[in-house]
């Protein structure tokens, strides 16, 4: 049994596909592709399919991934990519298919590019000069307070046209997960920066020591 990792972009209107829906969408795409994916044994056999690090609704990504299994010993990954590419709906663009080198649990961080309107400069400056930024994080066990400065000490933004752009690397994975939207919510609530005018693009997934997840 080989574990295969599928990398794809999630862009444009596809940003509004929730994780639950994404599973269904990918399941059907795999079925359309006719690829020899492994079905679970059991009363209702279904394609084994696992997603890593769900992306928040409305955010885009260059580096989404999921895992399937196959009984093929050494799959022709290029052929897999060619079969799956046309089976995906608009906005989900296949990047590549390859062996799952690491286990999904190895993911520790994700990189993001945030774009906010130029008018948010004062708000970002206020964030940078604040000693402490408390935000509310929703978890399965309820709401809890979080010190955002622990994870984002400073926002190093640059001007691009009418926007400000900056990069963040935040914990992601099974243990700690920090959603960049926490910063955007703070900017909206405290400095009236409309969250819908801000844009989040996930650019990379990382294992320990900033090693690219593979």
């Amino acid at each position: 049994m080989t574990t295969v990792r599928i990398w794809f972009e999630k862009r444009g209107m596809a940003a509004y596909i929730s994780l639950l829906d994404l599973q269904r969408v990918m399941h059907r795409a795999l079925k359309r592709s006719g690829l020899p994916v492994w079905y679970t044994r059991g009363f209702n056999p279904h394609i084994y399919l696992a997603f890593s690090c769900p992306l928040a609704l409305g955010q885009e990504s260059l580096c989404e991934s999921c895992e399937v299994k196959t009984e093929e010993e050494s799959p022709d990954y290029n052929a897999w990519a060619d079969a799956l590419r046309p089976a995906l709906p608009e906005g989900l663009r296949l990047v590549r298919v390859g062996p799952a080198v690491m286990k999904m649990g190895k993911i520790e961080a994700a990189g993001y590019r945030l774009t906010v309107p130029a008018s948010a400069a004062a708000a970002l400056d206020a964030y940078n000069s604040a000693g402490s930024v408390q935000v509310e994080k929703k978890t399965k066990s309820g709401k809890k307070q979080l010190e955002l400065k622990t994870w984002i000490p400073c926002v190093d933004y640059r001007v691009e046209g009418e926007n400000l752009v900056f990069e963040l690397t935040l914990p992601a994975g099974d243990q700690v997960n920090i959603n960049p939207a926490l910063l955007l919510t703070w900017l909206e609530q405290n400095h009236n920066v409309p969250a819908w005018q801000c844009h989040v693009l996930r650019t990379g997934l990382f294992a320990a020591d900033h090693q690219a997840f593979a």
Partner: protein
Amino acid sequence: MPANSQFIDVRQGLKQALMQVQKPARYTGGEYNEVIKDPANIDVRFAFCFPDTYEIGMSFLGEKILYELLNRHENWWCERVFMPWTDMKQKMEELHIPLYALESKDPLTKFDVIGFTLEYELCYTNILAMLDMSGIPLRAADRGEEWPLIIAGGPCVCNAEPMADFFDVMQLGEGEQMLQDICAEVEKAKKQGLTKQQLLENLAGIPGVYIPSFYDVTYNTDGTIHAVAPNNPHAPARVTKAIVKDLDSFVPPEHFIVPMIGAVQDRACVEVLRGCVRGCRFCQAGQIYRPFRERSPKLISDSARALCQNTGYDELSLTSLSTSDHSQLEEVLDRLNAWAEADHVSLSLPSLRVDNFSQSLVEKTTKVRKSGLTFAAEAGTQRLRDVINKNVTWEQIERTCTIAFREGYTSVKLYFMMGLPTETMEDIKGIADTAQKVVDLYYSLDHAKGRGVQVTCSVACFVPKPETPFQFCAQDRRETLREKQKYLLSCVHSRKIKVNYHDSATSVLEGVFAKGDRRLGRVIETAYRKGAFFDTWEEYFDYDRWLKAFAECGIDPDFYNYRAMALDEVTPWDHLDVGVSKAFLIHEYQKALRAETTQPCNRQCNGCGANKLLGGPCFDYGKNLV
């Protein structure tokens, strides 16, 4: 095209709106198999509007059929529009986003034709809301040359009158050919620069097309209809329903758009037959979709397989009013089973009948997955089942349940109605008795220890519908139905039996609009202006608001649903011919009052009149068909 300066650019507006509403994927389009074309190359732009949510509309087979047929024409483009849920509707109004089609994101005013499905009476207000959200005047009389052609189709057109004021064109019957003919005329009219009036006159010649403005209605002093007469020489005195004579002449849709979010019916489905041989007297579908026509087993199987491959669905259902009446059902199932398991596709047959459900049928449908069993018994006593011509006996229910229980089924759902003509409290008690007998049957058979049975009785309120033998009947009053519901609960003595029923306020309104006439257009508009929409959704339905609208218009709703009609009364739908004759309906009604049954029409022709649509007999009665 009128300038819609009050609206903003859709794509721009969506960036904001989609972040602030539930389930935004309902509003994005972009699903697999969606059809995108370059508007520069298009002669006819068609907006297919479903006046309910995305999840419900995307489950609707009619739209899938017509979407594929229209889009096969390179120079036509059919797109989808659904009613936005209340949060999105509010957001769109707040941000001045017009209602738009999912494919192009263009507002409805950019289209040549806007087509609505009239699937059930309670979504009429949603149609007005959707026109309003597009800035389009609601009434046909208020729309000049600059506005798109607004048309309707679907089962409710068999009594089109309550919505007649709002539509330029209504389609009676099956759209496969009719809608393509309409679009061809629209294309011609655009190229020749015809006026709307000229276009309407051309359309009036297409079989099944009804142009409401070409007819005048006159009334008697008692409020009943005196006559409905054409006022335009191009309009026929009676509009005859359009049908597809040979179901094999149209390949069923094989490229369903695959929703991202779960639709209500989110699976592959193939229509195996159209019409129904049964003639249940309460059932409108059983009358208006006549005559009975079948699709061949090979086409069903080949299309189903292509559909599953093109969509990635792993569940296939065979749909029709009564799938087990297909004369070659065993061959259909054998062909499907030849590939389904290997393709990881499971099979389900939603509308099985109690009376011809066989051992081999159960085996063929449960190869891959086992689900609950559903039976429509409809009435609790044999006498009442004979009245409604539901030719099902307790012995058949017993035999079927025995087979099913032996196969390992443990849950049975029974459908019933209350408020049926001639019904007494004895019949209501019969519902509880039937359910109890099913429970007792389960325990009388060998069953796995510790595995109990669950019998669910779903009891709907009967609504008399036009073009049925019961169209002449008055509907039961709400108070009566409430008493009957209470009595039914008092008759149930087992925890294995669950009874589901609904409050009857929506049924009252459904009864009024089902048998309503043109005067109700004002009521629908008034109720809409008062805030009525999503009336099918209990949380938005407000009965008092409707009563106020009736009062304001000076119209008594009771006149329509609580009044028995004389057999010779001119009905609001007499000028719309669905094939079944009024003489047949009267004959069947009189038989019902005598509790006399009528044979299914594949055994002997009962002379309903629908065979004139085929131009010959529906069945070769020389062959043994059943």
